[in-house]
């Protein structure tokens, strides 16, 4: 019992200090992280060819490694590369017409121009996809919403986002319960497509309606928790303020990318 109350004290003490997610990169303000990653992701568009995009795609694993999320990030990113990147590359490389084909395979005659174009496009898509994936590995939606609220975004907006995650869990659970109940009552959910399609309605309509019928109670309950009060809300959880060196890095990255785009516009590359 005493260890339990000791744990409770340790738990409560977490709120007396800044959130510590155990890594300096993950402790950064999610909005700063977002800006930096967004800048990096679009940078290769300013450069011709695929080298810049390839470099950017290699930067993400390095950041992931330093942030301690390589284990989560790398498999996802590799899968994206195989499922999306490779397909985009092969299709473009194979079908874009040009002279001097590298080799012929029936109708398909890939050219170096096609390969270049395919690599550039696939890597650009991967540069943006990688940023999105890495961002959600580095930041939690919860702290992102908190950071937005601290910058003046209304709690109603963040409520919608945060509540939708819980709604997905709750509705999913309910739908699966109903699905299992239907199956045990002998309603077919296997078999031919019409049978399966017909099972869709009785499973989902009641689940969705039940959720909608709860909205009134949710509304008054949240109102009872002063959700609609006019005073500015305070926050139990404290995000660490952005450190000067983080700010310097962010500004440098954004300035560099901006310079690249200006350079591209005036024809440096």
């Amino acid at each position, binding site marked *: 019992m005493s260890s339990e109350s000791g744990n409770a004290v340790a738990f409560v003490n977490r709120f007396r200090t800044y959130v510590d997610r155990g890594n300096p990169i993950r402790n950064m303000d999610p909005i700063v992280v977002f800006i930096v990653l967004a800048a990096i992701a679009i940078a290769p568009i300013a450069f011709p060819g695929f080298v810049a995009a390839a470099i950017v795609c290699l930067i993400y694993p390095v950041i992931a490694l330093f942030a301690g999320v390589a284990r989560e990030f790398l498999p996802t990113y590799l899968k994206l590369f195989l499922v999306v990147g490779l397909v985009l590359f092969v299709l473009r490389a194979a079908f874009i017409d040009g002279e001097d084909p590298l080799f012929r395979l029936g109708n398909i005659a890939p050219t170096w121009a096609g390969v270049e174009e395919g690599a550039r496009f696939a890597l650009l898509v991967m540069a943006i996809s990688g940023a999105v994936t890495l961002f*959600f590995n580095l930041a939690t939606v919860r702290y992102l919403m908190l950071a937005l609220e601290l910058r003046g975004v209304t709690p109603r907006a963040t409520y919608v986002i945060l509540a939708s995650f819980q709604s997905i869990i709750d509705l999913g659970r309910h739908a699966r319960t109903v699905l299992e109940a239907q199956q045990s009552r002998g309603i077919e959910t296997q078999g031919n497509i019409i049978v399966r399609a017909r099972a869709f309605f009785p499973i989902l309509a009641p689940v969705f309606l039940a959720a909608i019928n709860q909205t009134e109670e949710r509304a008054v309950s949240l109102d009872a928790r002063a959700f609609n009060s006019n005073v500015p809300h305070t926050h139990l959880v404290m995000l660490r303020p952005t450190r000067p060196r983080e700010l310097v890095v962010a500004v440098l990255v954004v300035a560099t990318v901006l310079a690249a785009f200006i350079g591209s516009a005036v024809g440096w590359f």
Partner: protein
Amino acid sequence: MVNESAVVKFLKGYGRLTIFMMPIGIAINFIGGQIALLLKLPVYLDSIGTILVGATCGMGPGALVGAISNVLNAITSPPTLAFGVLNIMFGLLAGYLARRGVFKSWSKTLLSAIPFALIGGVLGAIITIWVFGGLAVGGGALVVGALVALGLDVNTANFVAQVPMDILDKVPTVMIVFAIIKGIPNRTFAKLPLGYIYLGKNKAGASSKPSGTSVS
């Protein structure tokens, strides 16, 4: 009288439930898609919530539900971001059609599958062609590939493949939206921005203050 605080605005008038409908709309998009996968149906059924919220709360909330659902999808599959505008359009169109009373009758609702499918099919094809050069990966990619092999050019193949697929997707989608709207109780409609449509009132009458509160 009382000053118009946020609470007053929240408590009075239509739209009180909008921010509570939106998370459910987003969840419905996801769960619809998941159950369609679970039942191995060849359709997405992932825009039920967008159209439902558009039809009951209006264009803005519908578009937001579509946009947020798209961003949440992008967490696991970033390339879907390119198709975000589709979901936004579904929400806008649902709000627009709702104002014209489309979702009050099942036959009009069924017909609404056509404009939804046209947006989904044509705009979807355009994005596929424009962003991914017609060679996007996904459910329709195989069909497109087959059509190209049959001699169609890539662009035509995309349109030909996507519009019928979207009809197949949007017919059950709008019908389940209709079924849900039929099941929403009047007292809930009274708190939704477009609820007046389903209560058979005109907007002016609907947005007035609580009827008959004659407390002296």
